[in-house]
């Protein structure tokens, strides 16, 4: 047996060696271009932006290094401070409200209601729109002369006033509204998937013990959805930090620069005002903000995996 088998194996050795080699190398070869492109296109340019942020590049890149001068300029810039504060307001409210609405909607939908599929689609649909469309629609709705306020006046409620969009103290909250409208359905879908994954025997056991439905959700189900919370926060935080198109479509940063976000600041300085160094510095600070969220998250995720 051994003898007869070893011969064909020996004969087939050369081609199978080639096949093996190919099999071993083919996947690497196939993904190599992608890796190279990502390496250059994302990490390479990230590094380059970092380098540029230490130079006095104006409207073309230059390599006159000026140390941290651009960062110092950034910290003195009133507009950057407004943009950062707006990001804190926008990010905090956007993530918080999206999570709240998403969880509540998901729990309601989880009650085995009729037409769940249709309702789920309706709530999820805003996610299919681009931010530009969302921004334009909400700009029309909230514009006092075109939208809600005019409608109320036409219906006879002439004292109705809602001018947040054109009021520099409140305009940032209108951006939160539009963003929440867009993203909360998505959070709902994530949580719904999570809820469906919860073992129903646990819930039944809790029922037997006499726990009411709110208590079951609050004490048992939601804590078990921690990973879903984490992923939602990560996704929403990304959307918040890179938010650009929504602001451009809704207010273009206005009134004044009261709804400026860091991404809008970066674009304006790098591409419109020919201040590449300053723009790069602001981009690096945005990257820092994302990393500050991402690193603890990755750390906790990886640690959990090790425990499993």
């Amino acid at each position, binding site marked *: 047996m051994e003898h007869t088998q070893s011969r064909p194996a020996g004969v087939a050795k050369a081609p199978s060696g080639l096949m093996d080699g190919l099999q071993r190398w083919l996947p690497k070869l196939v993904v190599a271009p992608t890796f190279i492109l990502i390496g250059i296109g994302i990490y390479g340019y990230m590094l380059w932006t970092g380098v540029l942020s230490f130079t006095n590049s104006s409207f073309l890149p230059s390599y006159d290094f000026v140390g941290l001068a651009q960062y110092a300029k950034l910290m003195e810039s009133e507009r950057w401070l407004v943009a950062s504060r707006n990001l804190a307001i926008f990010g905090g409210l956007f993530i918080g409200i999206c999570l709240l609405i998403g969880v509540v909607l998901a729990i309601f939908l989880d009650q085995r209601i009729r037409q769940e599929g249709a309702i789920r689609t309706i709530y999820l649909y805003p996610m299919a729109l681009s931010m530009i469309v969302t921004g334009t629609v909400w700009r029309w709705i909230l514009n006092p002369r075109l939208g809600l306020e005019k409608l109320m006046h036409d219906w006879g409620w002439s004292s109705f006033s809602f001018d947040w969009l054109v009021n520099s103290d409140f305009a940032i909250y209108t951006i939160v509204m539009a963003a929440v409208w867009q993203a909360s359905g998505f959070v709902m879908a994530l949580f719904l998937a999570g809820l469906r994954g919860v073992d129903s025997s646990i819930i039944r056991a809790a029922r037997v013990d006499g726990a009411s439905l709110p208590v079951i959700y609050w004490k048992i189900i939601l804590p078990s959805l921690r990973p879903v919370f984490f992923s939602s926060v990560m996704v929403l935080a990304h959307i918040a930090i890179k938010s650009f198109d929504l602001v451009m479509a809704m207010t273009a940063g*206005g*009134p004044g620069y009261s709804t400026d976000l860091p991404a809008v600041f970066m674009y304006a300085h790098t591409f419109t005002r020919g201040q590449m160094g300053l723009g790069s510095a602001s981009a690096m600070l945005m990257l820092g903000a994302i990393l500050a969220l991402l690193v603890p998250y990755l750390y906790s995720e990886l640690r959990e995996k090790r425990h499993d």
Partner: protein
Amino acid sequence: MNTFKRHLTALAVSAALMPAAALQAGEVEVLHWWTAGGEARAAAALKEMMEEQGHSWKDFAVAGGGGEAAMTVLKTRAVSGNPPAAAQIKGLDIREWAELGFLTSLDSVADAENWDQLIPPRISDVMKYEGEYVAVPVNVHRVNWLWVNPEVMDDVGVEVPTTLDEFFEVADKLQAEGYIPLAHGGQPWQDATVFDAVALAQLGPDDYRKAFVDHDMNVINSDRMEEVFTQFAKVMSYVDDDAAGRDWNTATGMVIRGEAAMQIMGDWAKGEFSAAELTPGEDYLCAPAPGTTGQFTFNVDSFAMFSLTEDEDIQAQKDLARTILEPEFQTLFNQNKGSIPVRTDMDMSAFDACAQASMETFKASAEDGGLVPSFSHGLATTSYIQGQIFDVVTNFVNSNNPDPAKATDQLAAAIQSAM
């Protein structure tokens, strides 16, 4: 890669334009954003004139976005040694490009055509780098115009205001009758355009130049600048509450429809009135912005000319520069664009009343020093300082309790940090 692409496009172009290619003449590639309405017709006319001279014309694709996308492509192409022949660059940006060594001297054309005699020095200075022409001006816009709906004024029984005090008086009366006194769009550049006019009225041309061209801190950080901000806030208080984010032409529409009485805007606004088939002097009036009679804030569109390598292309580029300043094109283009010719020796009889008035003020102010570059349109200072001023002005006018003293400090700090 780039040369490959270039060959490919050259191939495509020559295939498309066989007769032109057969002449073996040069090609001008032109970056412009005259893509709509009268401007597009004017660009098409320029293309025709170039083709009559045997050259071929290639439009540089501009994909919107206020020209920023196009500028990015232009930078990339300039750095990789493959720039277009001409690009629509204006004001102080011309100098920045020239400093980097991308632009070519047009002095051979300028000398032959005697540009120094045709163009007022204050404008030709902007086109020159180290004494040599590197760009060719196309037109002159006057920014400090007040556009008026006469029916509204008659209805209330007021005259067109000529000073800021008169403006406030007239505006109060208009407001009492339920009209919006001043149509305006709350965008940073529009805020700056009005600020531009108020600053000129308050400071006068000499101090305007000191503040926005030389950045003299004695003028910028002074009580007089504080007064500019105070008056500016007062002017802006006559704007309706919903102006935020409104486009300038929507604001012009409000004047046309008689909802609003006046608008402070450059003479490109005329295009909106013409599109509504209104006659200047009858259906709408153009007057100098309050307090700036006899003064002229200019905004000049221009083409910067890049260094090229092929001899035929260089010839075509020179022909382009010459053609742009020829009376035929100047008349045709400026009639379509609402601006006035940059040459002061032109016959203005074919132009409308506003353009004729503009030309008269242009010539007179070029003599007496009332001609100033508009900072709000990038003719006075770098785009960085301009942006810094925009930030202060727009923040001031949009805050719920504007503080002129604080704004003056901010303006000084912002300009200082950008110098």
